[in-house]
């Protein structure tokens, strides 16, 4: 056989292999499209939350804490308790929204990881497909129900402390656990089998420039995130913890000594401290998450049916947004709205690049199903 015939035979083997592992409604296709979809929705939700809820909620928490301090100043113990209950309510509202954002994105990452590991799972195609549906149902149900916890409360609940939204959120979590355990059993079965067949997966051998950009860039983002985290732990963590206690102590003793100026000064410092903590932790978490996302997307570049130059551009846009958002979040305390706006643009760049890649995968599935993918 000539070398060109050999190359064309290899190419056609690869296409057959790809179309087999990425068949319509196959586990890998469901998990990849569903996973990117979950990440996209989670990010858009996070942006909406950041713009319309986060700061307003933080202001309410600050106002309640201030009211509690002034109630202590006025020797009103009942009002102190009432204001702390309000703080609890605001934090619950904020917590459920953060959890919705975080879980949706984390489940998206898990879906992409499972899609990558699919060829190593010693399960039938049907079982993998059913587990993928189960996973996606649970991954959708949990965050939606967590979001509803604050609004549904205990209405019509048969239990005293847990509402229907929590019950359904737990059910979603259970579905995800069952699916992941099912996939893990397939992996264990594969690795324990003495006569396992060699797994062929062209996704792992792809050496395109966009793939390499995303992989190396992703690890670099992770590295930056870890270096920033180490710096935070060494320089800020213990200082913040000491300040948290000393400021609260000053507010409390100022209230006891009926010194409104000391209380007001302490409250202002406490607000600044919480802001400083929040931006540093958010920058650390976001740069690492974007790094992991970039690495995961690197493997799926062969499925992104766009021109090579556009694939490169979208990879660069994703990396640019992944750096811009955390850096601008860090600068938010110093430069205010300008840095905040740039951070939002960074988030938008990541969302747009991710959407472009998702559309590229959809195009690929269309070509594959029509029998024209190469």
């Amino acid at each position, binding site marked *: 056989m000539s070398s060109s015939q050999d190359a064309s035979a290899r190419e056609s083997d690869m296409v057959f292999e790809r179309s087999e592992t990425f068949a319509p409604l196959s586990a890998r296709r469901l998990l990849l499209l569903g996973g990117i979809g979950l990440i996209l929705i989670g990010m858009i939700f996070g942006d909406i939350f950041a713009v319309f809820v986060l700061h307003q909620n933080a202001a309410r928490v600050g106002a309640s804490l201030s009211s509690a301090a002034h*109630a202590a100043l006025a*020797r009103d113990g009942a009002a102190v308790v009432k204001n702390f209950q309000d703080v609890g309510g605001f934090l619950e509202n904020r917590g459920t929204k953060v959890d919705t954002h975080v879980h949706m994105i984390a489940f998206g990452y898990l879906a992409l990881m499972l899609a990558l590991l699919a060829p190593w799972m010693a399960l039938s195609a049907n079982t993998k497909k059913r587990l993928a549906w189960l996973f996606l149902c649970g991954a959708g149900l949990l965050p939606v129900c967590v979001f509803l916890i604050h609004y549904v409360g205990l209405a019509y609940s048969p239990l005293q402390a847990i509402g229907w939204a929590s019950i359904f959120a737990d059910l979603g979590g259970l579905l995800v656990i069952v699916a992941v355990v099912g996939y*893990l059993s397939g992996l264990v079965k594969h690795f324990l089998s003495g006569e396992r067949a060699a797994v*062929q997966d062209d996704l*792992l051998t792809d050496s395109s420039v966009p793939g390499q950009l995303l992989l*190396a860039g992703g*690890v670099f983002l992770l590295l930056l995130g870890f270096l920033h985290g180490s710096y935070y*732990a060494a320089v800020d963590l213990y200082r913040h913890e000491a300040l948290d206690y000393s400021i609260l*102590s000053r507010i409390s003793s100022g209230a006891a000594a009926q010194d409104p100026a000391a209380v007001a000064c302490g409250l202002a410092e406490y607000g600044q401290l919480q802001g400083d903590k929040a931006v540093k932790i958010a920058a650390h978490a976001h740069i690492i998450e974007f790094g992991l996302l970039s690495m995961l997307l690197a493997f799926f570049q062969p499925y992104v049916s766009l021109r090579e130059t556009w694939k490169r551009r979208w990879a660069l846009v994703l990396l640019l947004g992944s750096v811009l958002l955390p850096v601008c979040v860090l600068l938010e305390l110093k430069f205010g709205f300008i840095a905040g706006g740039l951070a939002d643009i960074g988030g938008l760049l990541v969302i747009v690049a991710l959407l472009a890649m998702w559309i590229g995968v959809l195009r690929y599935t269309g070509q594959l199903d029509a029998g024209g993918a190469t």
Partner: protein
Amino acid sequence: MSGARRLLLAGGIALAVWGMVYGLWYAVFAEHQALEEIGSSLAAGFGGAAARNSALAERALQQYQQAKYVYDRQVDVHGHWIGLAMVLIVLGIGLDRLAFSERIKTLLSIGALLGSVLFPLGVLLQTLNHGNGPRALAVLGSALVVLALAAFALGFARKPSNSKESRRN
């Protein structure tokens, strides 16, 4: 499958399961109690100020500080173990694209896995012992992770690997 890849995949999955089991234990047996203690001690601190009882306020705020110190670390440990496990699994999947010899890949994988276990463990031990030992363990673990990641970034950036080994399981 190469030893390095097996180490990263199996180690990553084991660490993720361990992190989830720890999180489950924490959510069921410790988290609510911790949050309750943080909230009630903070309210008691301000209640003490309202009653002009400085000693009570001070005691309650110290209790708040201690509870918060433990809570923050326990939550961080859960998040970091699972997060690092995901990084190990992804690095394991992409190991064939790393432009290093098999020996260096194995050394890097051992470093990354060891660091991913030790760093959160050191943080967790700080809740039991405020001395320098747990801190040193956390610093050592994070240094291992940072060094391994720097080497991985360099290896992935150097050249795309097309090794036939990568097609084999």
